[in-house]
């Protein structure tokens, strides 16, 4: 089984449209599909902007992991396969099989650990592929998937050049190398210099005391610093300046832990300093970005707390994005692109692995 995450860079960047396009193609290709979300998707009207949103249409046979309350408002017929103990504000997550196609509201497990449990269940239920729909610009639970599609668009910023640059940077961060070490990584920060391992008293590098702890132990020589949690870019910048940082490898769980530690600009600027500092940056799990989907739509905010639908030039957006990225780019509103997107995802998830 392969889990595919659809992560948006902002609200209304086309996550649900991308998911809907894939559902259609997966069915055509006779793969058994599992579907869930790390938030709440498939509502008729966007929860925040009040603009209409595509609702997800699911086909017969699809297995869903959704909150109990979603079943009440979905028009698809769903047989409950298993109840789980995963809680959400909309009730506990249940696993169900679609027996008659229809529209669904998908609110799934909204934290990493719960998604992990849900993906295990999907595996046992023999799904070939599980789509994890994103929520807003939330990324953290996506650390659990095997590949990502980044859905971006004018809703992030209607400035095409800026959007292209930001997307390029984002894709780059996910390219941080995967560690070759094959060990059982602990659940705490750890330093190993010249073969001497020290377990540290924190998980995330998010405060000065943790940085001081590293500083106290850091010696000359080769080795690694492992941080399983979040890496604040403020302290990471200071870490790069530490006296004995040279020849060390900083290992983090995945690129998301690094990415969330600050704004994109800080992350990019710090990454530029890594080589100079003599540090090597690695992740335990590389989450490949399989494709980028683009959406020219953006909700323009009006003074009276209302939004209106606007669009940037889709051709210009597409062209510039293709030029800037070395991975496939699709506008999923185009029928041809839908097929292409599926082919790309399928090849990268199943054939290349």
């Amino acid at each position, binding site marked *: 089984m392969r889990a595919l995450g659809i992560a948006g860079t*902002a*609200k209304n960047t086309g996550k649900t449209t991308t998911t809907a396009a894939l559902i259609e193609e997966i069915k055509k290709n006779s793969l058994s599909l599992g579907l869930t979300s*790390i*938030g*709440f*998707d498939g*509502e008729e009207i966007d*929860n*925040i902007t009040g603009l209409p949103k595509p609702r997800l249409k699911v086909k017969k046979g699809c297995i869903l992991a959704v*909150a109990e*309350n979603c079943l009440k408002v979905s028009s698809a017929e769903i047989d409950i396969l298993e109840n789980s103990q995963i*809680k*959400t*504000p*909309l009730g506990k997550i249940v696993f169900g099989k679609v027996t008659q196609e229809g529209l669904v509201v998908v*609110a799934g497990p*909204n*934290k*990493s*650990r719960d998604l992990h449990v849900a993906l295990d269940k999907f595996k046992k239920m023999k799904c070939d592929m599980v789509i994890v729909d994103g*929520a*807003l*610009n*939330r*990324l*953290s*639970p996506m*650390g659990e998937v095997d590949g990502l599609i980044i859905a971006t668009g004018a809703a992030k910023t209607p400035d095409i050049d800026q959007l292209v640059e930001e997307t390029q940077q984002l894709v780059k961060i996910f390219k941080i190398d995967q560690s070759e070490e094959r060990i059982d990584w602990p*659940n705490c920060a750890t330093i190993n210099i010249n073969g001497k391992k020290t377990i540290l008293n924190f*998980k*995330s590098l*998010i*405060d000065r005391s943790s940085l001081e702890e590293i500083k106290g132990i850091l010696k000359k020589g080769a080795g690694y610093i492992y941080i*399983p*949690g*979040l890496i*604040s870019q*403020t302290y990471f910048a200071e870490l790069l300046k530490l006296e004995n940082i040279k020849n060390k490898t900083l290992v983090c769980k995945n690129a*998301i*832990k690094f990415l*969330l*530690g600050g704004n994109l600009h800080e992350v990019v600027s710090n990454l530029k300093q890594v080589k100079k500092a003599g540090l090597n940056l690695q992740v335990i799990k590389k989450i490949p970005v399989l494709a980028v989907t683009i959406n020219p739509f953006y909700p323009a*905010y009006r003074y009276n*707390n209302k939004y209106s639908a606007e669009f940037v030039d889709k051709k210009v957006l597409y062209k510039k994005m293709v030029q800037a990225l070395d991975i496939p780019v699709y506008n999923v509103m185009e029928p041809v692109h839908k097929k292409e997107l599926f082919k790309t995802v399928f090849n990268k998830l199943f054939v290349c692995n």
Partner: protein
Amino acid sequence: MKSKKHKVLLAPLDPVHDIGLKMIKRALDEKGHHTILLPPDLPPEEILNKIHENKVDTVLISRTLGYGVAEILGKFIDLIDASGLRDTIKIALGGMAVTPELATELGFDAGFGPGTEVEEAVAFVEGREYKPDIGKFVKNKKDITQRYSYKYTDKEIENLLDKITSQILEWSNNKTSPGVKRAELREEMLKTSNPKELAKLRNEYKELCDDVVKNFYENGKLHSRTRKLTKEELESLENYVAKIKARMKPNGLQHIDKNPLVFIQYGTGCPFMDIAHIKLCEAWGTDGVVHFDPSWGARTEGFFEGYITHEEDGSVITPENLLRIKKSINENVLWQVRAHRGLNTPETVVLAGNSGADLTKINIAYGSLGGGTDPERLTVDAISAIKYAAKYNMPFDVVTNEELSGVPAYKAFSGMLIVSHLALKLGGKPILQPLFCYSPEVMINGNMENNYIDFNAAKIFVLRKIIDAPIWPGAPIGFLTHTEERVQSSITTALHAGLASSLGVDAISIASSDEAFSGGPIAGASRIDTLKATKEVFRFLGNAKITPTKKAEEWAQILQENIKKILTKVAQHGNFVSALYEGLLGSREEGAYPGRAGRNTVTSKHSY
């Protein structure tokens, strides 16, 4: 077992709004939990550090939703998730526009929007399922007559009423009417399950009906403006009620126990629409609902049968319609079926009693002076109706709507007191229903030139000076003070409700904010207007009271003296029915016209 104490971080992500969190903090502190309230507007990274440093197990975030705020909140949850802290803490979001759906989307464990009780947040912290305060939210059906002794303080009035009612009972002895006879037959029809017996009874029944009803029993022909509900409509109605019942969380209107029960009136003509109105009002807190039947129903001898719909001004009373409506009403909501004014008064009480109604409405004086029924006929019928009300244990209000035609309050009250005393003699439980209205009398005499309070208060004061009995001003309160403006109508209804509550009455009937001027069906939103407005006034006043000026006492005094004068005249006259014809309880000059419907239909019991 000692309950676990939690360490809770309360963080207002909002620049200013942290009142909710402060209220929750106080409740948590009182329960011995360790709380840390952060100053407003700290950056998410700093809050993350505080969670980490203080090793809390629960985090409560407050934030009013606005442009771009969802992104900030989503990012915040992402930070917590990525740091690994998400697995060790519970985190909830509260604020304006927050819903469980939004909380799910943003990755929180719970979302608390406007109207959240502090207890709900405390339950979240303690990992308990939130159970709304039972006493506060579950309605209990109240018998508003229960705490009254019906003892007279004014013995002079009691003696007069005794004399008048004895005269009435003596006069009525041996008299009967088609209405009385139909009620007896209906009771037997409801009891029997033998089809032959039923057919025989129905045959007898139809002979006592007007042609239009007789035509129904003989040829199945309905009244011209009605039709039967179809099978599909009935099925759809059943589904609708089941769905609404499953979803509904009944509300309460009262802020303190002393606030009166609130009744609304329905009668769209269509049972389906009536039920929709009932369910809507139940959801917004009504304590009781009053069934209005069409005016032709009151002037026609006999009732139809079946599920009948589409009359214009009230819902047709049939055994089936009443049962269907009863089935749809929340079990804790009171149901009144009016029987007060027409040719079917005793039978209405029989049907109401058999359909499970809690209350009915009977008044001879209004029914015959303002309701169009012959006084003689209605007196005979009302005595029978009162006996049925006593039998089915249904208290009933004695309305004084003749005031709206121009009859002065003291005369209307005299009529009300006579009927109430008659009821007490026959084992009934009457409820006094003075009008809280801007009546022709006060317009002419200027009693409300300065305020709407004093004269209404005087009405309550005088009744209290006379008898210890339940009082239910109506119907609806503020009548004739309403205009076509919804805000004005809601305010005037609510203020009259506040006055009624302040005077310690037991119940009130309220109109919708478009009732007086809708010129057609009432809109659901207008019902909510006055229910909400009434609730707000109850909340506003609490135990505080509206103080009438000294005029109220003066007028109460005058009313009492005038009531005595009228009752003395009626007693001296020696015949209540004749007193009605002659205008002692409201004259033609005042706008009261003895009704003609059912004239000359009273007969000796032996003639049947």
